[in-house]
Each structure stands twice: as structure tokens, then as C-alpha cells.
């Protein structure tokens, strides 16, 4: 990042201005955008150094790195926007190793013609989310693509964190007999987003659950350091996450439909859209797996945290050579909870 001498450029016209190709050219316009928008919002000692990289101190422990690209549509939705989502998503990916997230980087891909006012809202939401989480954005990058070659704003964030020795959390560690827990109601984010899709539009009071979960994870790891698996059920929802873990751990799972928390508004929206809440995305929930003897302690620790008030034990890991996830239905029967096939499509009849 280069410095801009103040005084000889007019300030960015955030109110009426649009992103244009010069904002990604490496020239003065780009430097100005960075200074007045990104630096002003994200401000911290590393960013202020204006280097192309950040040199940061690392505490002891193993390094954890995660990256996530955010392409959500629409960019603003009930309960959040792409900015805070891009912070929460990556912090959560780092945290799901049982780690403490320390730093974030951000890469913006902007589409020519995108209003600077909206970009400012996104950047400020991102900054607020990072501040609230206590995880600074220490370096970044901005590119501009021609109109029609992007969807307004894409944001990639990479997170760096550290995990203490002795904590060994992985999707491959689930064992038969282990308990499966979730940290709250499922499907809120996906339904909030779908309510705004152009060909759907229905009115709902449901808000996205987008949130950083690292303080919840810290409380869980403190209560049960031997926690086996943590994962946030984002795209593909709980069903996909459980199938991924089953495959990694070479085990099966049995869950109980009646124990899975779903808001009535979410199940109603899913009902008329022909969707299954188990496959709908979450951005502020996690799945945890632990030894059966630790389950009660872990559940208590989760429920004691504001983000885990509705936590529940929903089932257990079982031995199964096919790695099937099965569910005891509320109706009294049994069925598989399979991988999602294609996109979740509504039924017609």
C-alpha cells in the first residue's frame, strides 16, 4: 500500500460515487479508496504500517489457518451482510479447530459500477464484526473487475489462529458411542437469505444467525479439552456436516429428529418451499462431538454461553461400515439423512 498525500485530492464521493476500473489500477484512486475506506474502518497498528504484508507476533502453540470466499446474494440480508459474514465465517473456520483466532486478511473483488455508499456499509460492518470479535484485519487486497464480471462484491478472508497443545479437534476423531451436539436452532441463515431471492420473496421475521463462535468454542474447550470434533454447518446444513464427519471418521451416526432444535418460523418456511431444514445453511451454529462421559459437561458449558442457550444432544456416533447418517423420525420410523443431491430444489406438487 502506498501513501497518499492529503490535500491535493478531493475526498472520495462516498454518497454518489461508483467503483470504477481506476480503483483497482494500483494508482492514486486505489490508494485513496484504501486510505479513506478500508484503512479508516479497519484501522490497527499493522495496517497502518502500509506494507504489502503484515508482520505479527505469534503466541506458542500450533498455527491454524483457514480461508473462505464469500459470494452471498443478496449482499444485504435480515440480520447481516456480506461484510460481517466474511468475518464470522472465517473466524468460525479457525475456531472449529478448537483454536483462538488472532488475525484476518481480506481480499475484495469489486464490480465496476458498484455504489461506494454500499461498499462503505459493507466495510464498516466488516470492521465492526472484527472489532467485536477482537480479531484485527491486518492486511488486504482490492481488485476491480468490469461490469458484468462480478456480482457487486466478493470478499475472501483468511484467518490465522493458534491452538494450544493437547487440544486435538478434527472431523476424523468421532468414535462409535460419542455424543453429537448442536449449539442452537438450525436453518435460520438460509431461510433469511431465501426470503429475499428475487423469484421467492416472502415476508419473515427470521434473521440470519451470522456470528463469530470463538468465545463459545473457548468455553467448550475449557470445559472439555478432549472434545473430538467441531464444525459449523454452513452450506448444506447439518445433514451435509454430519455426512462429512461420518466419512472422515469412518463411522455412522444416528440422530433423533425430535431433539433437533428448529424455529417454528423456519420449519414453516421450509414446509411451503419444499425444503428440509437439515440441509439449510447456518452461519452462527456449530456441531460438536465428544466422548459420551463428557456430553453432559459439554452441554452445560454450551448452554451457559449466550450463543449456546438452545444447545441440545441430538444423537450419537455408531459403528457402520457404510458411514450412513440415520435418523429416528419424530413419527416413529427411521430414515437416512443423505448427502444433498444437486441443489436443494423446491417440490412442485
Amino acid at each position, binding site marked *: 500500500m502506498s501513501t497518499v498525500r492529503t490535500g491535493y485530492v478531493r475526498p472520495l464521493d462516498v454518497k454518489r460515487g461508483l467503483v470504477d476500473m481506476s480503483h483497482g489500477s494500483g494508482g492514486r484512486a486505489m490508494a485513496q479508496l484504501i486510505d479513506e475506506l478500508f484503512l479508516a474502518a479497519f484501522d490497527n497498528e499493522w495496517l497502518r504500517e502500509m506494507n504489502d504484508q503484515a508482520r505479527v507476533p505469534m503466541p506458542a502453540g500450533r498455527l491454524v489457518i483457514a480461508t473462505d470466499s464469500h459470494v452471498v446474494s443478496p449482499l444485504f440480508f435480515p440480520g447481516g451482510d456480506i461484510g460481517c459474514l466474511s468475518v464470522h465465517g472465517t473466524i468460525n473456520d479457525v475456531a472449529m479447530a478448537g483454536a483462538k483466532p488472532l488475525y484476518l486478511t481480506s481480499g475484495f473483488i469489486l464490480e465496476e459500477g458498484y455504489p461506494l455508499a454500499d461498499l462503505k456499509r459493507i466495510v464498516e460492518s466488516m470492521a465492526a464484526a472484527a472489532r467485536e470479535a477482537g480479531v484485527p484485519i491486518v492486511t488486504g487486497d482490492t481488485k476491480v473487475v468490469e461490469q458484468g464480471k462480478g456480482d457487486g462484491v466478493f470478499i475472501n478472508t483468511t484467518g490465522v489462529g493458534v491452538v494450544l497443545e493437547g487440544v486435538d479437534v478434527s472431523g476424523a476423531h468421532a468414535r462409535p458411542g460419542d455424543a453429537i451436539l448442536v449449539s442452537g436452532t438450525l436453518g435460520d441463515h438460509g431461510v433469511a437469505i431465501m426470503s429475499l431471492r428475487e*423469484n*421467492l420473496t416472502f415476508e419473515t421475521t427470521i434473521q440470519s444467525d451470522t456470528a463469530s463462535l470463538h468465545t463459545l468454542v473457548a468455553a467448550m474447550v475449557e470445559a472439555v479439552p478432549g472434545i473430538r470434533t467441531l464444525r459449523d454447518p454452513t452450506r448444506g446444513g447439518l445433514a451435509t456436516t454430519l455426512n462429512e464427519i461420518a466419512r472422515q471418521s469412518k463411522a455412522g451416526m444416528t440422530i433423533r429428529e*425430535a431433539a433437533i432444535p428448529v424455529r*417454528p418460523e423456519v*420449519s*414453516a418456511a421450509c*414446509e411451503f418451499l419444499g425444503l428440509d431444514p437439515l440441509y439449510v445453511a447456518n452461519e452462527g451454529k456449530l456441531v460438536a462431538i465428544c466422548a459420551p462421559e463428557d456430553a453432559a459437561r459439554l452441554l452445560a458449558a454450551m448452554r451457559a454461553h449466550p450463543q449456546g442457550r438452545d444447545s441440545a444432544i441430538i444423537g450419537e456416533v455408531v459403528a457402520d*461400515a*457404510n458411514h*450412513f447418517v*440415520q435418523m*429416528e*423420525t*419424530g*413419527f*416413529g*420410523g*427411521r*430414515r*437416512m439423512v*443423505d448427502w444433498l*443431491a*444437486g441443489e436443494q*430444489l*423446491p*417440490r*412442485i*406438487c
Partner: protein
Amino acid sequence: MKYVDEFRDGELAKGIAARIANEADPSRTYHFMEFCGGHTHAISRYGVKDLLPASVVMVHGPGCPVCVLPIGRIDMAIELAIREKAILCTYADTMRVPASGGLSLMKAKAKGADIRMVYSASDALRIAQENPGREVVFLAIGFETTTPPTALVVKQAAALGLANFSVFCNHVLTPAAISHILESPEVRELGTVKIDGFVGPAHVSTIIGSQPYDYFAEEYAKPVVIAGFEPLDVMQAILMLVRQVNEGRAEVENEFSRAVTADGNAKAKALVAEIFELRRAFEWRGLGRVPYSALRLKDEWAAFDAERRFDMPERSVPDNKACECGAILRGVKKPVDCKVFGTACTPETPMGSCMVSSEGACAAHYTYGRFRNAA
């Protein structure tokens, strides 16, 4: 969820299950065909099978609108989108049905055809209004349930004077399909498909009423119980069918009385009669050409009929030889009897249409029930 959870109540289900187990004669079997994909889906999704005694066997029927759509009709639609550069609008599941040459509507879309998923026929009409310079074709599929909305948009298009909107009509009729199954040699003569009764359609019957089924009960001596799509509806209907069989009755009974009357929805039926007329015959996947089993637009609405507006030669394309969808739709075979089930044919790479829709027998069994066949 009020008015939904009540029909999925596990405690009530146990009560009905106990009555079925108690009343079903263990020395015989009961084969009931659930005509509708909606029932197939409910049975699989809620694990209804686990609540039935071994003597009660459910046979899946052909009532999945996506499943019965033959390859040729999808090919015709794809050609329309590519050759005429029309905006083709259709319901979601139709997008994935395999067509000729490894195509599907979804793959044609990826190749550049303008194919859009809509939630209702009126969405297609809106797209036509928003794109006056383009031809917009609604690929209409489904049984009697989805026909009235199509009729309505044709009327609306006429009232609006929309010159760029038309319907590629593939609406089919339930009673014709049931007769066809009952007349099939497998059921009539060979006895390879044993059917002791039908779980009758739910949503279709809200439109046509229960009266059209009287013929089957009388002529073929098969009990019919019209049932809703909730799992308790299905359980209750099975109990009613067991009772009819035990008592030697063959009547039309209505379990779905909260929505279905004897005469159905008079307004919807009048609307359909105003716009549509019977086709002499129509090709169904699995059933072949079935006489008087489908609808087309009447001459006075010809301007809105894509088949008359564009040059669309009728096409008939045989199914993949390895695919057993035909036999499965007729109840002759089960999904696991098909050699490609779960191997070459999966929901990700469907070869046959029964693997496409969640209401299809193969997709339902693969997605919800295949653990039952696991070693």
C-alpha cells in the same frame, strides 16, 4: 407448526400402527399402491414402513409428474429454448430430468439456453411481461393439481394481450393412468403385480373430487382410500384399506375429508374445461401411449399453445435400456430390482426420471431408505 405437526404426531401413529397390526390377517398379504409421489415421499421420509406389519406391502405408483414425463418431451423443450431462443420457464425438479444426448434442462442452461426455474405459472407470465421482445414459454407439467394455475395464466395472457407468451402443455390425468395400470397385463392377467387397493391422490382429489374413483372401486373391485400427504393420513388410509379388504368391500373412502369433497373444486374444473381439451393419446414414461390421458389447449387458445405456435415435431425417444423406470412406475419392479440403481444411477447422475424428483420411487428409496438394503 400448527396444523402440520398434528398430522406427524408419533404417539397417534403408534396407536394406528397397533390397530393395523391387530387387524391385518397375518396369514395373508396386503399390497396397496400409493398412486402419488407425495405419498411415496411421506412414506420414505417419515419411515412409515417401520410402523407397518410385514404383511402390509406398499407398491409405488406412477403419480410423480416429473417421473412420467418422457425423454421426447424434454428434448422438444430444449430444442425450443435453443432453436427459438425462447425463455423457457418450468418447475424446479423438471430441470434435472435426463434428456437425449446426455442433456437435461439444467445442462442446456449451462450451455447458454435461457431456462428459468419458477415457483408458479404466474411467475412465467410476469417474465413474459418483463421481456416483451422475447418469446416466453411455460413448460407446464403435472397432474390435475397444477393444471388450473396453467389455465389461469392462459386466460390472463389473453386478457393482457400478451403476444410473447405460450404454454408447452404436458398436463396429464390421474384416472387415465390408474385405469391403464389396472388394465395392464401384469395386473389383469399375469398377476405379477398384486394390488389389493389404492391409497388415492391427495391434492389431485381436491380438484377432481372423490367421485372419479368410484369407477375403479366398482369396475375393478379395488378399494380406494383418498389420503392426505401427511404420514398420519397415510397410516389412517392403510388401516381403512385393511378393513375394506378384510370385510370384502371395494369402495371409495375419503380419509382426506378436510380438503376433498365428492365433487371437487367446481371453479377449478370449469376453468380447466374452458381452456383445455383431451388429447387422443399421450406418451407417458413407463406406461407408453395412454389414450385420453393428457390435455392440450383448445383451438380458441391456440395462439398460446407452444406446440402450434412453433414448429415442434412430436418426438418419441426410448428410455435407456438398463433403466427400469417403466417397470417401477407400473409397480412391476422395485427400485432395488434395477441393475443400475445406486450404481450408475444416483441422484447426482440420474439415468431415469424416478431418480430425479424427491417424489420418484428411486430417489426416495436412495435418499431415505437404502440403509435397509445395506449389508
